[in-house]
């Protein structure tokens, strides 16, 4: 290319050292051991902790691989130039996609063989209208939530993603070898990207619904795919920065300057805020509308998993905001490393809180499920559960109670405020009654069969509707009618079982951390293997010069590494 490339070594190639291989291999071993312990540990016959850990990490790293390809496509389509010096890293990260997809298929296989019951929609006969266990909500979603679609979508969508990854990588390597001034390779990369961007954008939403959101099968949220994808995006940017800092430490990438790092730091900052925006949009709509089926999701997480819920916001919003808001924080490798590790862990935590409470809840439902076939369940659920609960333990009141708690901190001399507060409580219950009616109608609409029976069967039922728990015990209601015990309601009611501390669900334990580290090592093993196969500098890329002279116009000086200016 141009004269500017003379002063750098354009044939610089990453060497995957034996030491790195053994360290990564050792950490992968740690991950395998942790997974094995979670598999064999405890009396849990469905190995819930093992399967959810496997799903959690698989989804997390598959998403990072997907987003890496997405970023590449976005860069190419947007005529971006500055990313060229680190585009090999994205290419290498995208290569993990195939391993992630195979792991997802293992989870699918496990669900088909009855090895786990993470997915409520996959309970036997639950979408069969003739069955006593028919669940109308899941039934209405059965066209999407079924095992064939899960498999088909993962294979077809994921397969096409991976095809794009391979094509893009081949073009990029071939450009290195044969690229010329016609830039024909780059033009073809644009075609691949132009297909991948919209296709990947829409299908990733479908897959994230299937893989993660469908754990809470009754739940509705149109924001979820955006929010989960933003979580992937921030994680991918954090890993990218960490990788660059590591490789610079090893002596590579001398031409990646504080300018590139600064812009990546802006990504980290900006996309953290973007994630928060989506998180809040989802939360606020649900909080405001307060429809039972939707509220239950946050009700459970806020009240039974407060640490998961609040730490998520602190790690992924408050700290990145406060630390990175200063201009020069985005250029200091120490600060950036700290924030990257924090948000990487934070978004892993985010996926943890998307998956674990729902999966634990589903397990409780499975235990009292009447159509389980020969996967029988223990009859040891002695709690009478929520049927004896006072009506004010409902989701509505809990969400508002939580705020009332804050309210209670107001000074006592705020007489008017207190008065208003008391007043508010009063209205609340009225409002709840109104809600109960509303939910009731909704219930009748949604559950054409069976619900009038419910009222006969238990007088508290209206309250349950106002609870916002109604989706929750729906299957169990049926179970109840048909002669089963009202077992284990307490568990998914959220006031008995779920509040009990359970390591690996209430908070991630050491085994979860070990699994995470194992997967991270696996991910990096793939990335480094792929990275070592090509030169680090894409020497025939049309934008290489621009990338080598990237400048963000920062006047503050204080360059960390004295790179190119």
């Amino acid at each position, binding site marked *: 290319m141009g004269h500017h490339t003379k002063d750098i070594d354009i044939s610089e190639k990453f060497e995957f050292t034996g030491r790195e291989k053994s360290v990564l291999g050792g950490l992968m071993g740690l991950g395998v051991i942790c997974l094995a312990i979670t598999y064999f540990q405890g009396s849990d016959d469905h190995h819930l902790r093992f399967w959810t850990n496997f799903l959690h990490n698989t989804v997390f790293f598959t998403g990072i691989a997907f987003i890496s390809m997405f970023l590449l496509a976005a860069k190419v389509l947007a005529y971006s130039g500055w990313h060229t010096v680190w585009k090999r890293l994205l290419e290498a990260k995208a290569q993990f996609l195939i391993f992630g997809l195979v792991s997802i298929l293992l989870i699918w296989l496990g669900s088909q063989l009855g090895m786990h019951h993470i997915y409520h929609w996959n309970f036997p006969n639950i979408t069969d209208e003739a069955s006593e266990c028919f669940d109308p909500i899941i039934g209405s979603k059965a066209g999407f939530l079924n095992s064939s679609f899960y498999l088909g979508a993962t294979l077809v969508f994921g397969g096409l993603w991976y095809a794009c990854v391979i094509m893009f990588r081949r073009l990029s390597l071939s450009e290195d070898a044969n690229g010329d001034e016609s830039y024909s390779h780059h033009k073809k990369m644009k075609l691949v990207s132009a297909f991948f961007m919209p296709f990947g954008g829409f299908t990733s939403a479908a897959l994230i619904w299937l893989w993660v959101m469908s754990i809470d099968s009754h739940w509705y949220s149109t924001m979820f795919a955006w929010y989960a994808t933003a979580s992937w995006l921030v994680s991918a940017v954090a890993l990218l920065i960490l990788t660059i800092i590591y490789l610079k430490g090893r002596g590579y990438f001398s031409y990646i300057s504080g300018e590139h790092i600064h812009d990546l730091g802006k990504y980290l900052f900006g996309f953290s805020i973007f994630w928060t925006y989506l998180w*809040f949009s989802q939360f606020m709509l649900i*909080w*405001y509308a307060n429809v039972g089926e939707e509220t239950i999701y946050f009700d459970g997480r806020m009240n039974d998993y407060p640490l998961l819920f609040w730490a998520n916001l602190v790690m992924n919003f408050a700290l990145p905001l406060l630390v990175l808001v200063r201009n020069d924080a985005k250029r200091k490798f120490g600060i950036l490393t700290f924030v990257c590790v924090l948000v990487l862990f934070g978004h892993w935590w985010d996926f943890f809180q998307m998956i674990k409470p729902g999966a634990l809840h589903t397990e409780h439902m499975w235990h009292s499920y009447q159509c389980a076939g020969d996967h029988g369940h223990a009859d040891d659920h002695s709690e009478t559960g929520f049927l004896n609960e006072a009506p004010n333990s409902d989701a509505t009141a809990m969400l508002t109670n939580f*705020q009332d708690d*804050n309210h209670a901190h107001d000074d006592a001399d705020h007489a008017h405020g207190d008065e208003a507060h008391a007043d508010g409580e009063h209205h*609340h219950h009225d409002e709840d009654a109104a*809600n109960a009616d509303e939910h009731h109608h909704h219930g009748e609409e949604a559950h054409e069969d069976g619900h009038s029976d419910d009222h006969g069967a238990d007088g508290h039922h209206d309250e349950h509707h106002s609870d916002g728990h109604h989706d929750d015990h729906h299957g169990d209601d049926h179970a109840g009618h048909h002669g089963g015990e009202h077992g284990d309601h307490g568990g998914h009611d959220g006031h008995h079982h779920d509040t009990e501390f359970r390591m690996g669900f209430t908070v991630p334990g050491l085994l979860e951390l070990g699994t995470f580290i194992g997967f991270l090592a696996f991910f990096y093993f793939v990335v480094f293997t792929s990275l070592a196969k090509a030169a680090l500098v894409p020497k025939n890329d049309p934008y290489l010069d621009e990338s080598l002279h990237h400048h*963000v116009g920062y006047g503050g*000086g204080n360059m960390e590494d004295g790179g190119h200016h």
Partner: protein
Amino acid sequence: MASSKHNEVLYGLYNDEEVLMDAIRNAHKKGLDIMEVYTPFPVHGLDDCLGLEESRLHIAGFIYGITGTMTAFGFMTWVFTRDWPIIFGGKPYWSVPAFIPISFELTVLFACVGMVITFYTICGMGPGITNPILDDRITDDKFCIAFNVNNASSGDVNEMKAFFNETGAEEVNKKTI
């Protein structure tokens, strides 16, 4: 900056920002005192090259923003807990999630409007104020280095002209603004 006093200015026009940057470095080496550089678009690295201090506009922006947040949040808190408490949708009077969008909007509004006003004030721009321009083409495709030659001797002026010639200026003009 803008003062009522007229300045005599010698300026050279360049075609390319790379040439301009080289010329600026050259001027520093020669010890020439650049009055101002005009470009039709922001040139990355120019601030560094001219040794300009980092702008403090964003600090002002942060202060305006936080003022906006506190105004919105404080006002809503006062209205909904003290002045006129009303129940909306069964929520408590002090409903933080509902306050966040408005707090956000007011943060943006205060920061934007405040920064625009500050920027215009600092730069001496505004409705009804006309600012003389050296050459119309610096708003289009030319890059300009300007020297103040109010008190320059003819030797100095010749040195500047020589500088323009050797650094590749397309045109050299003198103007009083």
